[in-house]
């Protein structure tokens, strides 16, 4: 379990992480979402003591990370930035990290096999592709068989097979009762992997809820309607709290009314309906709605900043 209490990090007058409090529970995959620069990586680095919080604390399994007798047994971490000397082979990198805790060579061979790196174990890391580097980072995270895993963009650079493998691995780790805290910018991936979401925008927590609640809470239902007489339907459905947009293909998108209400109104007005489809909000839309005011780096058209 990870407990963040009013965690804050400032660089000069820029606040990267702003008063973040959250509890990452064991036994489920918690997704950590947010636009670039939202403070996800900084938060994760503060949990394992690489960055010093300006204020607040991060506790892992009840203690600060550095206070544990065997930190690698408590937390396995994959950082977004490379954390490997390119001149060393994958096996030697793992052996060096394992040695700090007296983790035996057999375990190093185990995680090499688990991450599919056995064949390249004696290759220098500098020659690794991005995907192989990610696998090595995951191998390091698994080394101590930790109760808590913190993975910053684990599927970054992985091929589809690797993406699937990370999904299965993280689900299996959570099913064993471990805490899995996972950041990703791939919404679709998160939708298939995470049970719970913490959404960060400009260093603040925008949402901390089960994934379904985030989707339901952040977006309104949209109903797609196709009719030969859009103008009359428009009049029939219009009312307070109802917004109607026309799409490029001539359909109407109705927000603020259910499919049943629209169908009844159309019947009463004698308007034929060719299609009446409730459109499920996606996590992607929910995420964009939540973070639209909190994007750190938004493209400004034609403007030079």
């Amino acid at each position, binding site marked *: 379990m990870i407990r963040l209490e009013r965690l804050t990090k400032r660089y000069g007058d820029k606040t990267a992480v702003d008063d973040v409090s959250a509890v990452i529970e064991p036994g489920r995959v918690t997704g950590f979402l947010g636009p670039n620069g939202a403070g996800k990586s900084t938060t994760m*680095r503060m949990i*394992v*003591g*690489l*960055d*010093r919080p300006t204020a607040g604390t991060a506790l892992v399994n009840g203690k600060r*990370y*550095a206070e544990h*007798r*065997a*930190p*690698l*047994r408590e937390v396995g*971490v994959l*950082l977004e*930035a*490379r*954390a*490997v*000397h*390119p*001149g*060393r*082979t994958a096996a*030697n*990198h793992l*052996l*060096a*990290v*394992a*040695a*700090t*805790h*007296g*983790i*035996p060579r*057999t*375990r190093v061979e*185990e*995680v090499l*096999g*688990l*991450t*599919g790196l056995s064949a390249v174990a004696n290759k220098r890391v500098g020659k690794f592709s991005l995907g192989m580097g990610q696998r090595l980072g995951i191998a*390091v995270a*698994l080394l*101590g*068989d930790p109760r808590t895993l913190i993975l910053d963009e684990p599927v970054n650079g992985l091929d589809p097979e690797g993406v699937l*493998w990370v999904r*299965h*691995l993280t689900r*299996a*780790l959570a*099913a*064993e009762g*471990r805490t899995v805290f996972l950041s990703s910018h791939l919404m679709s991936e998160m939708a298939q992997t995470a049970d719970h979401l913490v959404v960060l925008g400009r260093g603040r927590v925008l949402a901390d809820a089960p994934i379904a609640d985030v989707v339901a809470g952040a977006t309104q239902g949209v109903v797609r309607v196709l009719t030969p007489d859009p103008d009359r339907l428009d009049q029939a459905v219009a009312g307070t709290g109802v917004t109607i947009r026309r799409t490029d293909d001539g359909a109407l998108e109705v927000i603020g009314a259910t499919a049943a209400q629209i169908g009844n109104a159309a019947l009463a007005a004698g308007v034929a309906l060719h299609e009446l489809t409730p459109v499920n909000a996606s996590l992607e839309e929910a995420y964009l709605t939540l973070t639209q005011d909190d994007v750190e780096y938004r493209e400004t058209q034609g403007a030079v900043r």
Partner: protein
Amino acid sequence: MTTTAPPAGPAVGDARLSALHVLRSEWIKLRTLRSTWWCAALIVVLSVLFGLLIAAFINRDGSTLPTAAQDGDLVAVVTIGTSFTQLIAAVLGVLVISGEYGTGMIRSTFTAVPNRLPAVFAKLVVLAVSMVVVGLVAVALTFAATAAILSGHGIGARLGDAAVWMPIVGSAVYLALVAVLAFAVGALVRNTAGAISAAIGLLLVLPILLTVAIGLTQATWLLNVNALLPSAAGAQLHAYAAPGGTVTGPGGRGPVQATADVVLNGWGGLGVLVAWILVLLAPALVLIRRRDA
């Protein structure tokens, strides 16, 4: 590749941090980089080559010289390379820490050892011990390579005499101390190029600048400062000191400037060098603890 969670053997369950474990980790790190072996090989090769070069230039008949002069020549030949190999020791000392900051490896190191200082002390121990060993191998091979030439000149090899073996062993200790000094510079600067420049500036360039200034001004205080620089003070560790006689530097540079008030013997030189190390290492350790990795 499997998709199930990792089965961990019972040995992983006993895993925990300890000073000995961290020491072992740092030894693995040092010996698994090619740069370490390049530096070690260069130190040995340069030491032997410079020893042979100086031995070849000896043109006097040692058998007519007093014992002290023979001993002085022997020490000079065996340790002459130290003036050059110290720079390689400095480069390695910088790389051991700046290489980790430059590549991001430091994040793996400090994640595994979150209190940080045990990892740093382990690095220092491993670096210093390896440098002593490499330095001893270098002087041993240099001695072996030059023995025939020296005996041809009638120069005896009284290795059992403390005045002879102490500066020879001292050259290996000096390499270790220079590496530690450079490590402190590397920890402060964190950038490899900058730290190597700063370390070489301190060891090589500053003494040259001071020598020029002394030549122009003849100022006694500059002589004193010069004698207290790390390389000048450290040179006393590998200089032959005739029992009760004058101190001569490596290569027979002659007596230490008589006009300087500061005249260091081997132990004095050691003390000054250790003081330099402490002055640079203390803030480095504080910054390592405080800075974001």
